[in-house]
């Protein structure tokens, strides 16, 4: 009997067509409004840092994969996204070599040495960020003021909104109109200022299914509730809740940092608990911690808890069912 030439494989015989590359393209599309806002407020200097970070990430990735004997696969875009997100966390005042060092550390330490794409215990971007933050803290804490043409007087806001959130600067916090916070018309890192752009990108990611809603929603809501409770207790010592969620990294962290693949839990209840943990820890660090911005450390701490939170899972269908 003549055998026709047929492929044989296991079921299923269909695929959604989803790939890592498509997910990363969604990330890049989601970052478009954020990058645009950065260019709008901080000018070409912001784009320069982003390009430095992206190129360093790609080169580092290629070199590592070559040296490790893996197939060089830059086209899946995950290294590019890591680089760009890291760039968005830096101030435009940082020197180029510092941006490159952060990107390098994010790829080598955060991404590859700690386990590989999707298997690293800590968000690679935050690992790279923590490396430069701890090594070069004074340079990292220096922020540009958006261009005066956007209605902000030089020197009116003296510090980063995240710095203002420290209790002693509360009066200053209350000066900042929420509208400016929402539109990003405040001193900030390249990508974290404009809540509107981040929301647009984040909602796009949720709509495309690249991230699920659980983590961003529970992160933001829990931070708001926590801040609201403390403001009710002592309005003189704590900033308003809405100010908290619009300022600093909170929006950016909720959509682009906390749901990172492999570092966040995957079950519904696990994701909600993780988001609540991120939100509450952020507010604790902001209110009483040594660092003005609590988001990165809150996320890194919750990353460490993620495997544990993944054990909080719904009962599998059909398990321990009582039959009357």
């Amino acid at each position, binding site marked *: 009997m003549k055998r026709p030439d047929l492929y044989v494989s296991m079921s299923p015989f269909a695929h959604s067509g989803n790939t890592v590359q498509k997910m990363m393209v969604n990330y890049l599309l989601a970052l478009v409004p954020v990058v645009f806002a950065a260019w709008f407020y901080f000018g070409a200097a912001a784009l320069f840092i982003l390009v430095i970070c992206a190129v360093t990430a790609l080169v580092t990735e290629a070199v590592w994969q070559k040296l490790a004997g893996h197939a060089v696969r830059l086209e899946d875009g995950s290294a590019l996204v890591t680089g760009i997100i890291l760039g968005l966390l830096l101030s435009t005042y940082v020197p180029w070599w510092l941006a490159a060092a952060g990107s390098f550390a994010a790829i080598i330490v955060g991404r590859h040495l700690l386990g590989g794409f999707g298997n690293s215990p800590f968000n690679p971007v935050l690992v790279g960020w923590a490396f430069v933050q701890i090594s070069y803290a004074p340079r990292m804490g220096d922020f540009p003021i958006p261009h005066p043409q956007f209605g902000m007087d030089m020197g009116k806001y003296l510090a980063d909104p995240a710095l203002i959130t420290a209790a002693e600067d509360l009066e200053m916090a209350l000066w900042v109109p929420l509208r400016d916070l929402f539109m990003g018309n405040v001193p900030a890192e390249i990508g974290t200022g404009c809540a509107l752009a981040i929301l647009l990108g984040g909602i796009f990611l949720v709509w495309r299914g690249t991230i699920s809603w659980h983590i961003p929603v529970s992160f933001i809501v829990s931070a708001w509730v926590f801040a609201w409770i403390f403001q009710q207790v002592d309005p003189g010592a704590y900033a308003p809740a809405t100010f908290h969620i619009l300022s600093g990294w909170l929006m950016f962290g909720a959509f682009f940092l906390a749901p990172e693949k492999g570092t966040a839990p*995957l079950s519904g209840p696990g994701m909600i608990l993780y988001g609540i943990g991120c939100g509450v820890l952020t507010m604790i660090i902001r209110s009483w911690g040594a660092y003005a911005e609590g988001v990165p450390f809150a996320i890194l701490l919750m990353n460490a808890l993620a495997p544990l939170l993944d054990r909080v899972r719904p009962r599998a269908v059909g398990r321990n069912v009582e039959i009357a």
Partner: protein
Amino acid sequence: MQNPGTGGISLEPKTLPLPPKVVLPLELPMGSVQAVVRPGDSVREGQLIARDEKGILPDVRSSITGTVSDIRPWPGSYGRDALSMVIESNGESGDTVRLYEEGRMPQNAQDQLRLIAESGIREIDDFPWPLSVRIAQPALTPPILFPFVPDLRRPIEVLILNGMDRQPGVWIRSCAIRTMEEDILTGIPLLKALTGAEKTLLALPKRETLSEAFERGLRMEGVEVAVVKDKYPNALEPVLIKSLTGREIPQPGGDARTVGTVMVDVLTVAGIARAVYQGVPPVDALVQVSAPSQWIHNFVRVREGTLLKDALEHISAAPKDPARVVTRGPFLGYSVYDLNIPMLQQTEAIVFQGEKDLSLYENEPCINCGFCVRACPMRLFPNELSRACEYGHFEEAEGKDLLRCIECGICSFVCPVRRPMVHLMRFGKSELAARREER
């Protein structure tokens, strides 16, 4: 995955001419039956050719009139060879051997159930028990089965008639609803009587529109129409029963009967009605032959056991040079290595894929994206299970509910790195079974 609508394709089945020969498998996943005719014997269509000595599995009946030429292994619908009987046609048709003589229709339920078992109806879904056992209420079940399947002692409370197609791109039950209305309607009261169910539901996809006469008939029988979201894997037994009745089938080892339900698809309802009221055994198989990427969809009615190769000669829009051929649907099916496979009642759909439609698996590490976790209808963690099976941690996988996986394949479907999830799960299950046997 959302089921694409029928998009205006014709659901009218086309009857193909008599095939030169048919191949009827005697080995099926449920068990094997023994031939009662020998090579060289001449058989008539509808004649009994093989039966289960234990009297549990349905009989096999010849679908054509001719001569038994051989009993030998033949490429089967389940991706492997199965012992099969080859019958050469002598070109005659009609004059079917009926299941009972004119005017001697079985009146009592016991006899009707026996007739259903003898008629040789086989279902599309894989059930652990044959139709005649599943649909019998405890009073009608042979008591000898109770020690083996204690769940058969439970009364059937809900009868679910499944009008939902199992997989995206397959519309064989939609086709049945449109073309077999009368048979379905006459079968419903019979099934209600046999099961003793208090409540009867007809599960339908949202897009389905019923004819007025059919709806009136359903109302008269007191059948509730339950509209289910037309999304894979909503039509699979455990998922459908859970969504319609809220009852979870305990897994593994559970059965619809464990939770007092039974699910029968509309095609089978029609088959039962024809067998019991008209005495006609199912000599035909209704099969969909599709090449989805070219939007070719044929619904054909062939003699059961017709070889796909023979059938293709009569299908005008048959796809040429397929790269992969899948029987029993794109998600739950088996790829075949030979076009000489018989088309059976349980074949459901044969899908031709071109070189471009091939979704091949890759040997990539999991990236923990969580798509499979969100998609899994059994609320499992396919990412962890596939990794545990991949690295040989089978006991760990078992502790994480590996045996509750229903192999629907939605995890493979959504996986961005194309891991062979179902393959790994099956591997894990077979290793666990082998270890248990050793002990």
